[in-house]
């Protein structure tokens, strides 16, 4: 029933994003294809339609959709369990006969499910648009880009959920989460620029994994996959521990 309630609370936003993200991806695909058609340089990098596919997937999904997914996950997480404290409904919820871990993991599962569905829809729309614009389907492999995108979304969603529980407010949790996300995105770039040291970044993982899936990158970012899977699971665990010790 809690899953139903989570879905009911966020369904408006989910449906809007379920439409918006694929539309954004199709739009960027159209722009990118049109742009590449007229560029000699683009022909150098994408001498055939398979390369054009790979470049488009890496740009539209690996970069644009990844960034939008992170922002979407951030906002979705703001309306999660911690908001119950702000709305003063936590008292009602937490006297239902379930362990507190149930509320954390059920809410997290619904949120990650919604992100995954949205991401898959965006990838499928991009895939369909590319097939439509080029009249060519090299392989179904690019559909797998949905996995790193969903994983990245799960990391940010879990982090925001955790922050809403820490702050006991959706809005404050969103503010903290946004601050952490901005620092997390900017810091690796700055550190890499000034000190030439690679700092793991969830966006970097999403882009890297996308490039490997479409065949642009040679090495699969296994280390990053393990790291970000662990991080994605650490946040709900931390939320669980926090909630179990919280006085309502």
């Amino acid at each position: 029933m809690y899953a139903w309630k989570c879905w009911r609370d966020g369904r408006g936003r989910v449906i809007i994003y379920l439409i918006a993200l694929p539309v954004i991806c199709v739009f960027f695909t159209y722009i990118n294809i049109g742009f590449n058609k007229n560029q000699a340089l683009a022909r150098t990098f994408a001498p055939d339609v398979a390369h054009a596919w790979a470049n488009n997937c890496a740009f539209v999904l690996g970069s644009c959709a990844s960034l939008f997914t992170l922002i979407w996950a951030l906002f979705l997480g703001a309306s999660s369990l911690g908001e119950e404290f702000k709305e003063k409904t936590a008292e009602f919820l937490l006297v239902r006969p379930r362990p507190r871990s149930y509320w954390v993991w059920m809410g997290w599962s619904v949120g990650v499910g919604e992100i995954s569905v949205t991401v898959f829809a965006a990838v499928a729309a991009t895939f369909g648009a590319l097939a439509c614009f080029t009249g060519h389907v090299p392989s179904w492999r690019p559909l797998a880009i949905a996995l790193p995108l969903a994983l990245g979304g799960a990391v940010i969603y879990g982090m925001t959920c955790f922050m809403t529980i820490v702050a006991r407010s959706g809005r404050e949790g969103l503010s903290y989460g946004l601050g952490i996300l901005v620092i997390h995105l900017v810091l690796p770039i700055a550190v890499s620029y000034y000190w030439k040291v690679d700092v793991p970044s969830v966006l970097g993982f999403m882009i890297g994994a996308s490039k490997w899936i479409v065949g642009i990158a040679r090495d699969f970012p296994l280390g990053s996959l393990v790291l970000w899977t662990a991080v994605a699971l650490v946040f709900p665990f931390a939320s669980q521990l926090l909630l179990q010790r919280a006085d309502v």
Partner: protein
Amino acid sequence: MSDMAIWTEKLVKTYPDVRAVDGLNLNVPRGVVYGFLGRNGAGKSSTIRILLGLARPTEGHGTVLGFPIGREQVAILECTAYVSESKTLYGNLTPRELVRFTRGFYPRWSDQAVRKYSQLLEIPMDRHFSKLSQGNRTKVCLLLALSQGADLLILDEPATGLDPVVLDEFLRILVQDVVSDGKTVFISSHQLSDVEQIADWVGLIDHGRLLLEARLDDIKSEFRWVTAAGDDLTQTSFPQAMLVASEGNFHKYLVKSGAEAFAAQLSRQGATIAEISPMSLREIFLALVRKEDPCTPGNVGATVAVASLSIS
């Protein structure tokens, strides 16, 4: 199975700025209506939060329906229905949707009870909770609690916003449908008249301490005002009585039991007994909690009362 619905021993809950519950020993028998009385901020809600696992006790321990607090919280919540003081539920859901949401958590949920009580309490089932009046919100909370099939109902200020007709109906439901079914009702309130109508037992809390715990019938039959006139009575302490007021030579005592013997004792000391009269629950409540701090060293009478009036 424990014969106590709620039992606590030396329960303490401290917050950074206040000691909300201070060594509370509660004994709530099964199958009774227990009125948990106290002023605002006396520690009633804090106690309830501990019982339901919403807050962790700083010290002490206890059981609810035989299950230890904090260790078997899910088992406690399966058998316990709770109406909170705030009566805040999901504003974007209608009562019908709230029923749908709540139903899934309770194997003993009764749709029949939902139909019965929603009609009886005249609840608008298809209007968003946020759009309901305070009274209707209270009714929805009561509906959800009554339909769970719980063995124990914990009601924190359940009468908030209810008009006299609905309140009367609700109290009748508690007595006829709930307690007659062998279930226990634990009502926290400062509305003494409502509690007095239906309570079998009364617990009186102030500053986080239990001042009195007894059967309501015993209280009514044994507690007495003794008014006496005499010199130097204030110099003598009487362990069985509490000096409530003095004006000139007239002194008013609250006596838990043995009012006649106490009056005889006063007479032997040269006092004249002006009146021995019964007390209402309201009078007992006011007498016990009106002291600013019942346990300060200068407040000897109240301290004695605290020590001597508890009925185990």
